[in-house]
């Protein structure tokens, strides 16, 4: 009589088959980042080198930066595991922990978000914030509330951006030579218009950078990986084909930004289709749509939740961008929505199971009402962009 191992039903698991488990998902995620990495290297390194504006070693820097992003976060997590778990701090158990921690992905995404002339020490600070504070202190992979890479990016963006600018900023060696770039990224120009209250137009927003096709290809100034919609789309199609992400999450997010931008454009007298197109092709909307809002840990799990999340996020992005005067509204709105991913997940789980019956109805109506309020506020406020917050201040005073 043999004694057999125990186990829990079901005894068949997809994950036990080769190439169908979380490791594969993460590998596919890395593969999806490959076109983006290559394009950013091409745009910021090879092309500039071919133009003769930088030397060979400078050409390798974008690639070095991206690889270092991944490498540093792995090393930092290794140290974290060593320090926090004194009993199992040998090579074997730490490398086991590292294989199921997938540290390399936030590091690489973080590097892709940063401008080309980011000094290594700034990258180190960002990686530290991302992996240690954003991920490990929350309990490691699967427990983090904020998207680690995004947290690192946002905090470094608010605190250390001066050092990046001092070191050279976002322009690569060829872009600085173009006078019309006017020392600002496309959305930076938009922010200038927001600040001064002048009307914007195709000629002022898009033409300095060529045409919208350039925005699609990605030959505009910006962070390393966020500019090329084309490369991001290739990665996104790969992820959808591999069933890693749901196609509707990015589509709904981009669609929300597109439609709201369109409405706002019409309201302020820019009815051209170029304006919403410009709006979705700048400021990392595409990058966030494919690589950030589909990031499984920090976004809702169930399909309805993903839809709700994308809708809210798109609205908040537009709100922050046009009303709140934060040109890079994507990162901030995403960090904010990361917090709300948990209640949205629960609410949408209830709605999905129960349908529009009690108690699902109450949760659904709460979500719906909040959504309608945000959308309405965004549209109304952005018509008169600069006095948007006055009514709120007035209400405070009355109360």
């Amino acid at each position, binding site marked *: 009589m*043999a*004694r057999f191992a125990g186990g*829990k*039903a079901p*005894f068949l698991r997809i994950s*036990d088959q080769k190439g169908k488990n979380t490791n594969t998902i993460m590998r596919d995620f890395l593969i999806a980042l490959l076109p983006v990495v290559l394009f950013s290297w091409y745009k910021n390194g090879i092309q500039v080198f071919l133009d003769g504006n930088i030397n060979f070693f400078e050409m390798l820097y974008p690639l070095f930066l991206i690889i270092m992003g991944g490498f540093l976060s792995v090393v930092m997590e290794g140290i974290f595991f060593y320090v926090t778990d004194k009993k199992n701090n040998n090579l074997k158990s730490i490398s086991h922990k590292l294989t*199921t921690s997938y540290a390399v992905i936030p590091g690489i995404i973080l590097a892709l978000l940063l401008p080309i002339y980011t000094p290594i020490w700034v990258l180190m600070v960002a990686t530290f914030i991302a992996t240690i504070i954003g991920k490990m202190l929350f309990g490691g992979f699967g427990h983090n509330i904020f998207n680690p890479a995004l947290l690192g990016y946002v905090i470094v963006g608010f605190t250390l951006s001066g050092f990046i600018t001092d070191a050279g900023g976002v322009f690569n060696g060829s872009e600085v030579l173009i006078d019309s770039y006017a020392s600002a990224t496309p959305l930076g120009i938009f922010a200038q218009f927001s600040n001064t209250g002048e009307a914007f137009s195709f000629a002022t927003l898009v033409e300095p950078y060529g045409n919208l096709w350039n925005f699609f290809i990605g030959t505009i100034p910006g962070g390393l990986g966020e500019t090329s919609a084309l490369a991001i789309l290739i990665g996104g199609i790969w992820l959808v084909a591999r069933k*890693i992400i749901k196609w509707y999450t990015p589509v709904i997010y981009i669609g929300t930004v597109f439609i709201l931008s369109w409405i706002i454009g019409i309201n302020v007298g820019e009815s051209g289709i170029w304006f919403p197109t410009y709006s979705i092709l700048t400021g990392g909307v595409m990058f966030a749509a494919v690589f950030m809002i589909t990031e499984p840990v920090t976004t809702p799990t*169930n399909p309805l939740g993903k839809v709700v999340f994308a809708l809210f996020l798109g609205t908040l992005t537009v709100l922050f961008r046009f009303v709140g005067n934060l040109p890079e509204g994507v990162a901030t709105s995403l960090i904010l929505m990361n917090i709300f991913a948990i209640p949205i*997940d629960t609410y949408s789980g209830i709605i999905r199971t129960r349908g529009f019956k009690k108690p699902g109805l109450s949760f659904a109506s709460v979500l719906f009402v909040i959504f309608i309020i945000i959308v309405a506020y965004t549209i109304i406020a952005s018509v008169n962009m600069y006095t948007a917050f006055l009514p709120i201040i007035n209400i405070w005073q009355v109360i």
Partner: protein
Amino acid sequence: MIFHKAKGIQIEGKKELCKRHPLADYLNPDSVYIPLVHRNLKLEPQVKVGDLVKIGQVIAQFKTYASFITHASISGEVKSIKKVWHSTGKMVDAIEIENDHKNTLDESIKERKNVNELTREELIDIMRDAGITGMGGAGFPSYIKYQTKENIDTVIINAVECEPYLTCDYQFIIKFPEKLLKGATYMMRAAGADEVVVAYKVYNTKIEEELNKLTEKYPHVKLSPVKDIYPAGWEKYIVEQVTGKTYTSLPAEIGVIVNNSATAIVYADAVEKNIPLISRPISITGEGINDPKTFFAPLGTKVSELIEQCGGYVEGLDPMKANYIAGGPMTGRAIFIDDLVMDDTLGAVIVKPFITWEYPECLGCGRCADVCPVYLTPTEIKKAYERKDVKLLDYLDTKKCMQCGLCSYVCPSHVEITDSVSKGIDLLRKGAK
């Protein structure tokens, strides 16, 4: 809607393992152990140690709020009442009968003459007295279904067998196609319905062939192939596929009764020859078995004997790196010691080596929610269970779960999520009380 579309998924069948051999008879084991437990009810033994029993003799029964009778599956002497491993994963008392190899039949087993004149009540009584239960795995006494007051118009014979590895229903049908149709007809009459539908998987063309040969004789029987997905054998799914209607708790609400195909075959014998439920088909399969086969064996047979008939375990099988599963691989139970006895619900024993790897944390990919056939959100239920949040468990409709195991099956991080959900159901039941 895109976010509300769970339709089950196709699972690699692995049924060819067991289809290499036809249904093999193993009717004369040296001794059998009839468990004194059915589902979680204790049965009262009706015999004493030393008694001689005949095939079909009532040896244990349970009569409190429902009636359930167990019969001797072989003739011989009652040797003892001792503990054996049961498919529920526990050790239970069982009546040991030593075979005298005479195959003496009980007096009650005889050809029934007035088969076509039996009333509905008589048919239900036969079903109860023969101890017929759902042989798909639930083990629910079938006659209770037929005592419904609802107006039944369709009886569905479930020959889908959606669990991987299992072929016992399939091979049973191939061997006794006419019995299936007869049993289905009697069930239709017992239910007072006017239609009977046999549902099977669309790729099982052999069932279709065999049954089509006989449909002229049984014009009221309809064939209904269903898609090759898991859990296509789920009652709700079949009912929806066949009638297009859905129900909330019991199929009788919409005038449907669903019965397993093996039950129908056994019922045909019970009606015509008054043979009670004393034997059933069982698949002994899995990668750990040398030569997997499906047996037709008396209840109470030791599975180890059947495994020996299959040539034992494959060479070099490390039992500590293998599961010994009673039932299907999706819903079955791991047994720690291969000292299991067959009962009426055990359709298969699977011996399957497994691999372990570094399981990561749940990454929240949402595949479990995608595949859930009842639109639950297993990750949320798991979180609610870990927080012991009974209210949230109720909001999340946890009790709708039928533990098909798909969420754990698709999980890329090997999270025991089905287990958490079942614990959540237990908590909800306790909390509700």
